[in-house]
């Protein structure tokens, strides 16, 4: 499925969708950015509650398909600007990370 299809199927919010046609192949959950950097798989949806601009840098570094801010977290201004500049898909949901990840899993299988 693509980022756009996942977003639509699950009713998640789009803060910035630079590339809605990008394929999502799995998920990764984590909030310690440097931990995520080395572990999130390419093309996954990364679930986090962190909302500072470094999230965009880590998303690029790990080459994830999209970032999903959970628990209703809103991106701060710097993150939104960075996501727009660097073309990072940035989604959001009011669901907690576990729920969001389970829903993504059902969506992808």
């Amino acid at each position, binding site marked *: 499925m693509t980022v756009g299809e996942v977003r639509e199927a699950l009713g998640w919010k789009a803060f910035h969708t630079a590339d809605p046609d990008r394929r999502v192949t799995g998920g990764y959950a984590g909030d310690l950015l*440097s931990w995520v*950097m080395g572990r999130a798989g390419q093309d996954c949806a990364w679930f986090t509650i962190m909302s500072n601009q470094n999230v965009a840098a880590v998303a690029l570094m790990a080459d994830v398909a999209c970032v999903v801010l959970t628990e209703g977290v809103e991106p701060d201004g710097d993150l939104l600007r960075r996501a727009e500049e660097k073309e990072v898909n940035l989604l959001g949901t009011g669901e907690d990370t576990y729920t969001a990840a389970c829903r993504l899993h059902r969506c992808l299988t």
Partner: protein
Amino acid sequence: MKLYYDLHLHSCLSPCGSDEMTPGDLAAMCALAGLDVVALTDHNTCGNCAPFCRAAQAHGLLALPGMELCTQEDIHVVCLFPGLEEAGRFQRHVAEHLAPFANDPEIFGRQLYMDEADRVLGEEERMLAGSTDLPLEEVPALVSSFGGFAFPAHIDRSSYSLLGVLGLWDPSLGFPLAELSHRCPPEFTSRPDLAGVRFVTDSDAHYLDQVWGAEHSMEVPERTPQAVLAWLAGREKSETA
């Protein structure tokens, strides 16, 4: 004597530091700002400290070499040392604990080594932006074993801060002092868990225009790195090694 300080500054060696933060220009900016004691604290490295300290001394400033260490918990800790030799040994130790990634300058920014005349000496290829695998609880004793002093950085911020990550101040970690960002609201320090903690406020400047004027000061018996470190630690200088 009263010394105006800024003990948390980044140079162009920090990936997120502006390339204009050359050791020479940063030192000149600190002097213009009216500061008396300054420290260079790049992310996970002391690699530009020697030229910065020389340039700052040439401007009549007292300069300490330092590092903003990122612990395995993504918590930033300012580590300051009495001299370049101690800082260099600490840096070699930290280098063994860096994450094994190469820096991508397109994403994180360049990591430039420069001399005090602003000549580029080279570029650090390892990624300095990530965390080390050093646990926070070991940092006070570790830094002390290299002759330095450590305090958690910008604890009022939500990211990369002790309170942001751990949620509460834990006195058993052994930090007598914490750093506040310049945006810290005044009521922040009346949190019950911060009772008894002393504070410093630094600029954490990543750009030249973020180096501010002389606002925060310390009272020390003499103008030496040892006296500054002792003041930070809350001890008399005679107690320092």
